C-alpha cells in the first residue's frame, strides 16, 4: 500500500462512456493482485473532495490500468486528464481474489464490474489454469472487453435485450456448465442482484467455491473511516460481524455475505 504519482500513458474512450486508463506505476504494479483496487485523487479542488476507488483492470510491465465508466462528476473529471499528466493514486488496496486450487475457474462479470476479472483472467492464463469468462450486459456495450482478454480464453456473453431463446442473464450462460461435478471456483463481480442469482443457482453446492467483489461507497479506502461496512457471517459467532470492504474486502467468499439470504 503506497501513494504514487503515476504518469498517465493512455486515457482513451473504448466504448460509449467507458474509458481505458493506463498508468506508469511501478510500485503499485509490483504489489498488486487481481481484485484489488486503487484510490484516485481527482485534483486540487475540494469539490469533489474524495478519491475515487477503481479496480485494477490489468497490470503489466510497471503499468497498471483501470477501466471506468463515466457515471458522475468524478469519473467525468477523470476522463479529461491527458496523457503525460500525473495522477496521485494509492494502492494496491484491499484483499483481491484468492485463486483456488480447482480444476475450473469461472469468471462472472456484470457490466463494468467485469473490470477486475480481466486482470484475473490474465493471471489464470499465466498460471495455465482452465478458465471461462461469462459476461452479462444490458445491450452489447461491453463486448469490446474480449479484446483485452487472453485470446484463447473461452468467452460467453448474455444481453438483457436479446431476443427470446438467447441468453439474457449471466445465469442463463452459467446454467449449462453446472451439470459437471468438476470442482469449480467462481469469481464474481457485478451488481449484488447478480450475486443472489448466482447463489441461488450454485450457492448450496459443495464443489463450488464462490467469491464476490462487494461495492461500497468509500471514504478513506484504507480502513480508518469505517464508511464501507459490510455485514459478514463469521461462524461460530451468531451475530454478523461488521468488516471493511476496503480492507477485509472488496472480495469476500459468497457465503460470508449472502448465505443468510438463501
Amino acid at each position, binding site marked *: 500500500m503506497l501513494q504514487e504519482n503515476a504518469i498517465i500513458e493512455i486515457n482513451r474512450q473504448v466504448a460509449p462512456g467507458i474509458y481505458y486508463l493506463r498508468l506508469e506505476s511501478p510500485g503499485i504494479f509490483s504489489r498488486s493482485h487481481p481484485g484489488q483496487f486503487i484510490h484516485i*485523487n481527482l485534483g486540487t479542488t475540494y*469539490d469533489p473532495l474524495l*478519491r475515487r476507488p477503481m479496480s485494477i483492470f490489468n497490470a503489466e510491465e510497471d503499468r497498471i490500468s483501470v477501466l471506468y465508466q463515466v457515471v458522475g462528476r468524478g469519473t467525468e473529471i477523470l476522463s479529461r486528464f491527458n496523457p503525460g499528466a500525473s495522477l496521485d493514486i*494509492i494502492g494496491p488496496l484491499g484483499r483481491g481474489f484468492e485463486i483456488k486450487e480447482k480444476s475450473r475457474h469461472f469468471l462472472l462479470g456484470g457490466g463494468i464490474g467485469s473490470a477486475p476479472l480481466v486482470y484475473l483472467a490474465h493471471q489464470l492464463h499465466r498460471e495455465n489454469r482452465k478458465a471461462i469468462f461469462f459476461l452479462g450486459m444490458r445491450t452489447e456495450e461491453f463486448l469490446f472487453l474480449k479484446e483485452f482478454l487472453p485470446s484463447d480464453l473461452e468467452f460467453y456473453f448474455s444481453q438483457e435485450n436479446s431476443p427470446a431463446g438467447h441468453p439474457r442473464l449471466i445465469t442463463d450462460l452459467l446454467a449449462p456448465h453446472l451439470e459437471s461435478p468438476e470442482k469449480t471456483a467462481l469469481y464474481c463481480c457485478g451488481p449484488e442482484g447478480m450475486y443472489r442469482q448466482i447463489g441461488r443457482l450454485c450457492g448450496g453446492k459443495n464443489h463450488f467455491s464462490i467469491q464476490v467483489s462487494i461495492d461500497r461507497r*468509500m471514504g478513506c479506502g484504507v*480502513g*480508518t473511516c469505517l464508511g464501507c461496512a459490510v*455485514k459478514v457471517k463469521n461462524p461460530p459467532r451468531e451475530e454478523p460481524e461488521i468488516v471493511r470492504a476496503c480492507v477485509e474486502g472488496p472480495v469476500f467468499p459468497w457465503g460470508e455475505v449472502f448465505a443468510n439470504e438463501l
Partner: protein
Amino acid sequence: MNSKLKTKIGSLQLNNPLLTASGTYGNGKEFSSFLDLHSWGGLVTKGLTLDSRTGNSGIRIVETPAGILNSIGLQNPGIEYFLREEIPFLEKLEIPVIANIAGRRIRDYEELARRLDPVPAVSALEVNVSCPNVREGGLAFGTNPALIYEITSRLRVITDKPLIIKLTPNVTDVGAIALQAEKAGADAVSLINTLLGMEIDIEQKKPLLGNVVGGLSGPAVRPVALRMIYQVYRQISIPIIGMGGITRGEDAVAFILAGARAVALGTVNFVNPRAPLEIREYILKYMERHNFSSLNSMVGLAHQEREA
C-alpha cells in the same frame, strides 16, 4: 523534528501541534505505510465505548459539496478489546496517544476513564460529548452546559491525565459550554465535532444515510470551525485544540492565530495521507517568514492585532 513547533495541552507535551482527529485515523496502523507516525504531534484514537458497537447500518458516508457526511455510529470493538489488542501497538509509539471516549450515560464515561486511567500508553483523554450519530444520547450532553459541568467534574475526580472535552458545534453558544468545561476542571477543549446534516436520495424519496442524519466535516465547515475557535478563545483560558476542515498549511496557521494551541486533521487524511507532513513544513516556513520563534507566540494573534 524542530523544537520551534513544540506545544502544550495542559501537562501534555507535543512535539508539534498536529493531532489526528478521532475516528478518521483508526489507531494509526493503517497509515504507517504512508508516513512515519512520529511525524504527528500526537495520535487521537477512534471513539471508544464500553461495549463493542457495530455502528449504523445502510450508507454511512456520502460526499457533499467540499465535505462529507458520515454516520458511522461509533463502530468500535469496545474498551476490552482496545486494551488487549490495540494498546500493544500504541505503547510502542513515542508520541502521546489520546484516547477518545464516548458513552450513553455519565457512568459509561466514568467507567471508561477508570479503565484508561492506569494505562501508561494513554497520555490523555478526549471526551466526546457530541457525537451526532448515536441516537441514545451523546448529543444531549454536548448541548447542555450543566451536563458538561457535571460530566467534566466527575471525570476530573477519576483521572489526573489531561482531560480534553470535545465540543459540538450544533449549539447556540459554544462559549458558554466551553466555560463550564473549564470551570469543572478540564485541561483543554477540542472543537469542532461535526455539524449535523443530512442528504436525501430523491429517487428513493428518503434520507440517504442509514441513520437519517450524519455529521458534516471537511473544508465546507472550516469557516464555522474557525469562528467558534476564535469565539471560544475570548471566553476561556485553557488550551483549545482546533479542528474542522483543515487541509492545508494555511488553514492550520489560521486556526492557531484564531487561538488553537494544537490542531487536528480529520477528513483530509482520506484525501491526502501526507497532509501532516506538508502542513508541518508550511507552519515552519510561515514561522520563519514571520519571525516566530515558538508556536506559542502565534496562538491567538488574530485577536491581538485586532485590538491594536
